[in-house]
C-alpha cells in the first residue's frame, strides 16, 4: 500500500510542476483569449536570469525577488513590443507570433548560456519526510506549497481587488472597458507582466528538480496546457486541480497499467481531456460563457 501512496505522491509532484506553469498560462488566457505557447520558454529564460544572479554571488533570497521584478518588466515589454502590433489580428496570428517567440527565446537562451546542464539552488531543504514508509520529498512539498500560495493570491487578486475586477473586465470586453476609462493597453501589459512573474516562479521552483537547460520547460508546457484545459482556463483553482489530476493519473497509469507502461502514459491525460471536454466543454471548474442572444 505504501508503494501506491508513494506513486500518488510522485504524481502530485509532477502535477505540481504542471500546475505551476499552467497558472501562468491561464493568466494570459484570461486577458487575451489566447494560449501563449512561449510561456514555458519565458519561464526558462527568467530562471536563467536567476541562475546568473546567483552565479554572480548574489544570495538566492535576493536574486528571487529581483528576478521576479525583471520578469514582470520583461513580460510587459514583450506585450508592448511583440503582441501589441498584432493586437487586432485574428486569434491564430497571435498564437503563431508566440510560436515565433518560443523558437527565438529557446535559441537565444542556448546561445547565451550554452546547453550545458546547470544545477539550480534548491530553496527547500534536501531529504524527505518519511511518513509510514512513504517519502514526501521536501522539494515536492515546497513546490506544492508555493503553487497553492500563488493560486490563492491569484484567486484573491481576481475576485476581491479593484485591479482584479479591472483585469476581468478587460478580458471580457476591452472596448466597453475603454469606455469606462480603463487603460486597456496598460492592463494587458500588466497581465503579461504578472504571467511572466508567475512563469518565473514556476521555473525557479522546477529547475532544482529538472535541472536547468534551455529545454527545461518544453516538456512541461504540453502537460501544463493539458492541465489548464482539464481544469478550465479561466479559474486558477481549476488549473491547479487539473494539473494534479493529470500528474497523478499519468503516473499511476504508467506504473500500474501494464499495457500503457511508461511510454504510452501521455495517452492518459489525452483520454481524460477528451472525456471531460465532451461532458463539460469549459473544463471542470471553468464557468460556462453565458450567451444571451
Amino acid at each position: 500500500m505504501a508503494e501506491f501512496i508513494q506513486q500518488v505522491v510522485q504524481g502530485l509532484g509532477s502535477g505540481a510542476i504542471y500546475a505551476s506553469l499552467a497558472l501562468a498560462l491561464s493568466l494570459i488566457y484570461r486577458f487575451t483569449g489566447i494560449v501563449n505557447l512561449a510561456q514555458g520558454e519565458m519561464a526558462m529564460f527568467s530562471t536563467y536570469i536567476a541562475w546568473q544572479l546567483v552565479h554572480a554571488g548574489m544570495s538566492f533570497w535576493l536574486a528571487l525577488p529581483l528576478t521576479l521584478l525583471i520578469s514582470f518588466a520583461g513580460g510587459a515589454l514583450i506585450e508592448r513590443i511583440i503582441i501589441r502590433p498584432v493586437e487586432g489580428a485574428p486569434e491564430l496570428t497571435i498564437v503563431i507570433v508566440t510560436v515565433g517567440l518560443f523558437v527565438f527565446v529557446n535559441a537565444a537562451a542556448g546561445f547565451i548560456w550554452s546547453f550545458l546542464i546547470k544545477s539550480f539552488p534548491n530553496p527547500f531543504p534536501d531529504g524527505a519526510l518519511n511518513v509510514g514508509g512513504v517519502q514526501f520529498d521536501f522539494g515536492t512539498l515546497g513546490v506544492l506549497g508555493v503553487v497553492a500560495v500563488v493560486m490563492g493570491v491569484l484567486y484573491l487578486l481576481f475576485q476581491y481587488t479593484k485591479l482584479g475586477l479591472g483585469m476581468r473586465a478587460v478580458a471580457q470586453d476591452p472596448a466597453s472597458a475603454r469606455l469606462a476609462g480603463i487603460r486597456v493597453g496598460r492592463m494587458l501589459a500588466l497581465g503579461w507582466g504578472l504571467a511572466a512573474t508567475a512563469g518565473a516562479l514556476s521555473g525557479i521552483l522546477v529547475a532544482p528538480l529538472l535541472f536547468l537547460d534551455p529545454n527545461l520547460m518544453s516538456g512541461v508546457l504540453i502537460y501544463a496546457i493539458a492541465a489548464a484545459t482539464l481544469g478550465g482556463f479561466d479559474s486558477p483553482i481549476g488549473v491547479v486541480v487539473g494539473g494534479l489530476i493529470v500528474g497523478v493519473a499519468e503516473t499511476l497509469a504508467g506504473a500500474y497499467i501494464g499495457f500503457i507502461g511508461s511510454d504510452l502514459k501521455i495517452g492518459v491525460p489525452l483520454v481524460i481531456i477528451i472525456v471531460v471536454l465532451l461532458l463539460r466543454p469549459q473544463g471542470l471548474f471553468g464557468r460556462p460563457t453565458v450567451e444571451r442572444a
Partner: protein
Amino acid sequence: MRTTTRWVGITLAGVLLAAPLAACSQRGANNGGSEASGPCKGQQTTGITKTSIKLGGTYPLSGPASAYGEIPKGVRAYFDYVNKEKGGVNGRKIQWIVRDDAYQPPKSVEEARRLVEQDKVFALFQTLGTPPSTAIWDYANQQKVPQIYVATGASKWGTDTKHPWTIGWQPNYVAESRIYAKWLKDNKPNAKVAVLYQNDDYGQDYLNGFTKAIAGSGVKIIAKQSYEVTDPSVAPQMSKLAESKADTFFDITTPKFGSQALAADAKDTSWNPLHILNSVSASVTVLKPVGFSHVQNVVSAAYFKDPADPQWADDPAMKLYKAKLKQYQPGADPEDQFHAYGWTVAESLVKTLESMKCPTREGLRDAMRSQHDQTDDMLLPGVLVNTGPGDGFPIESMQLERFKGSRWHLFDKVVDTRKEFGPVQ
C-alpha cells in the same frame, strides 16, 4: 467539368513548350565530377585538390536536440589548428561546411544533397543522430560519397554490409553494454538489475546489447522503465524502479535525464543500487550539478579523456586541446564533453586522411576500412582505432571507471570487446 479541361489544356501547352527548353539547362553543365589519373585512375576526386579538401557535416543546431550542436565547435578548433599550424593534411587545407538539420531526417537528406551536389564536398564527415544518418546513408552510398565517422553509436553502422561508404567511429552501444555485462558477471554474478532507458534507437540498442550479453548468466534484469525525450522528468520512472529493490541500476539516459536519474537515486535513501551510467552521460558536467557527494561510486566506461576530469589536467594532449579550443573557438567551454568529442573525432579523421593511399573518395573509403592500431592523443591510453574487412567498428575498446571524490578513477584494464566477445551481430 469545364474547369478541369481548362487546366489540362494549360499543362499540355506547358509540356510542349518545355521539351525544347530542356536542352539548355543548368543541370547538364556542372554535375560531372573530376576523376583521378595515374595509379588511382577512374576514382573520384570531387571536392579534393592539391591544396584543399572540402568536407560537410549535418548537426541539430536548432530544435529540441540542439545541445549536440556544440560538437562542431570542437571539430572546427582541431581543423583550424591543423590548417594554421600544421599546414593542413599532406599540404591540403580542410574546409568543413556544417549544415543544420534540426534532427529532422527529411532536413538531413536535403542538407546532405546540398553538400554533395551543390557544395561538391569530398566526403560527409559527422552526420549526427541515428535517424538522420539512416536517412542519408542510402543516398551517400548511391552517390559513392564517403559518410565517414557518423556521430552515433548505433551498432548497425558496423554490422551492416550494404553500405560500404558509411562507417561509425565511437564505440557502439552494444560493445559498451557487453563491458558492463562482463564486469557484472565477474564481480556480481547474481546481480538483480533495474534499467532506465530512453525509448528510441539509442536506448534500445544499449538494452538489447545488455540483454544478449547477460543471457544465460546469473545476472537478471528484474525491472525496466523507459522515458520519452518529451517527458519533463524521469522521477516517476525512478520511483517505480526503486520499488524493485534491485541491487544494480543500469542508467541509459542522455545528459539532462542522466542528472535527473542520479539526483533521484541519491534522494531515495531507501534504495542504494550500484549505479552504472552509460558513457553518453558520463561527463563530469553531468555529475557536478547533482553534487559530487551524491554520485560516489557510480560506474561508467570511457574511451576518450573527459576534459572536466582533473586527472587529465596536466596531460599534454588535454593541454593542447584546451589551448587550441580557447584560441580558435573563444566562446566554447573546454569542459563540455561535446567539444572534446568533436576534437577527438576530428583528430581521427585527419589521421585517416593522412593514411589514404589515393587522394580520392575511393581512397578514403578504403583507408577508413583498413586502419591498424591507429592511435589518437585524446583517446584513453590503450584505446586503438582498428578496422578491417570483417570489422566495421573503428573503436571497440573502452575502460571502466568509478567516480570517487571529484573525478573518475579508471580501473581494470582497457577491454577490447572484439577480442573479448567476438564481432557484434
